[in-house]
């Protein structure tokens, strides 16, 4: 029993650094030097209309280029390269919109779990509002991603409305649907862990596709697993990491690697993976 709970795994300290890493990256995204490098996309979900944004949002660029019927080589190239390197690690450790939800989730409110299938909605959003609607109907369509995006509403519309109100100018209100989605999002983040990332984020949907082949992945060592199910308790998204360590719903927060026996670690495809292989080839690994 003692063996199950002690923290023998050095990598188990990694999750403690997550908030610091997210905060450090926030300085990169919030443009403290006023560079406004909007000719380049970032690999995170941060609206380019935000007064504090260093780079362009890749999802916004893909949708806008779709409306122009131009292939966005840079945005797609960046997402493929970053996805191949890190997969969903970007969502858990780098994305500022994820950090916002993580911070609000610390509020002592009851948290509700979500059914597994809602994760599929991310692909519906990606295909529908980022690819199909922009290409077919251009940016005037009410379901064009930027017209419904809560990140845009929160990071761009709210600061702009505030500055217009302070300056005594005429206020340019966003559409009702966008405000409604923002309202629902602001309520949801108090009662669910990362609702945007888990239900609707099209960028997370793209990165999750790389989870099985990205350089960094979650490694499960069946030989060390004591079946204590600590990882189930650590995972805030209802994933059973020992069953599917590279689940599409995983955002690589790496909380599960805090498991006492050290059965879960952050691995790299360039390391030897004998134990991982044996875990999947031997279904009676826990007998």
């Amino acid at each position, binding site marked *: 029993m003692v063996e199950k709970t002690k923290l023998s795994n050095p990598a188990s300290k990694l999750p403690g650094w997550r908030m610091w890493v997210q905060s450090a990256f926030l300085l990169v995204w919030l443009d403290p030097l006023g560079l406004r490098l*909007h000719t380049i996309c970032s690999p995170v979900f941060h609206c380019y209309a935000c007064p504090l944004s260093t780079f362009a949002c890749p999802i916004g660029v893909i949708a806008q280029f779709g409306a122009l019927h131009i292939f*966005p*080589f840079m945005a797609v190239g*960046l997402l493929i390269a970053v996805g191949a390197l890190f997969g969903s690690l970007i969502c858990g450790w780098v994305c500022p919109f994820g950090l916002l939800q993580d911070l609000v989730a610390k509020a002592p409110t009851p948290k509700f779990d979500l059914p597994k299938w809602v994760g599929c909605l991310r692909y519906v959003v990606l295909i529908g509002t980022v690819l199909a609607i922009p290409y077919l109907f251009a940016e005037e369509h009410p379901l064009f991603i930027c017209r419904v995006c809560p990140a845009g509403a929160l990071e761009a519309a709210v600061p702009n409305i505030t500055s217009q109100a302070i300056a005594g100018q005429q206020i340019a209100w966003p559409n009702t649907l966008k405000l409604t989605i923002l309202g629902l999002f602001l309520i949801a983040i108090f009662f669910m862990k990362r609702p945007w990332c888990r239900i609707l984020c099209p960028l997370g949907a793209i990165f999750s596709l790389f989870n099985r082949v990205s350089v960094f992945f979650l490694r499960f060592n069946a030989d060390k697993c004591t079946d204590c199910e600590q990882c189930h308790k650590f995972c805030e998204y209802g994933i059973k990491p020992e069953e599917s360590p590279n689940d599409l719903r995983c955002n690589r927060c790496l909380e599960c690697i805090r498991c006492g026996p050290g059965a879960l670690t952050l691995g790299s495809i360039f390391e030897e993976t004998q134990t991982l292989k044996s875990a999947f080839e031997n279904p009676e690994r826990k007998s």
Partner: protein
Amino acid sequence: MLTKKTKIIIFSLLILLGVVLLTYGAFFHSTDVLPQQEDGYPPIATSEPALIKEVSVGGVKRDESGKIKQTYTGKAPEACPT
């Protein structure tokens, strides 16, 4: 179950594809953009980085004929209209 070798091959192909797309987009890809007042003005070849900046402020649109057209004259808008 993907083997280590397969994963490395897939990763290498993806990185190569990503870098090729990025490089092509950044240095070789351009699009003709018509100025708002078309009369006599030729289209301007706009590089992809410049086009990214334009779309981020709603500075270009596709008209009925399929041509990309600037939405403003003079100073660019400050923020995306959406």
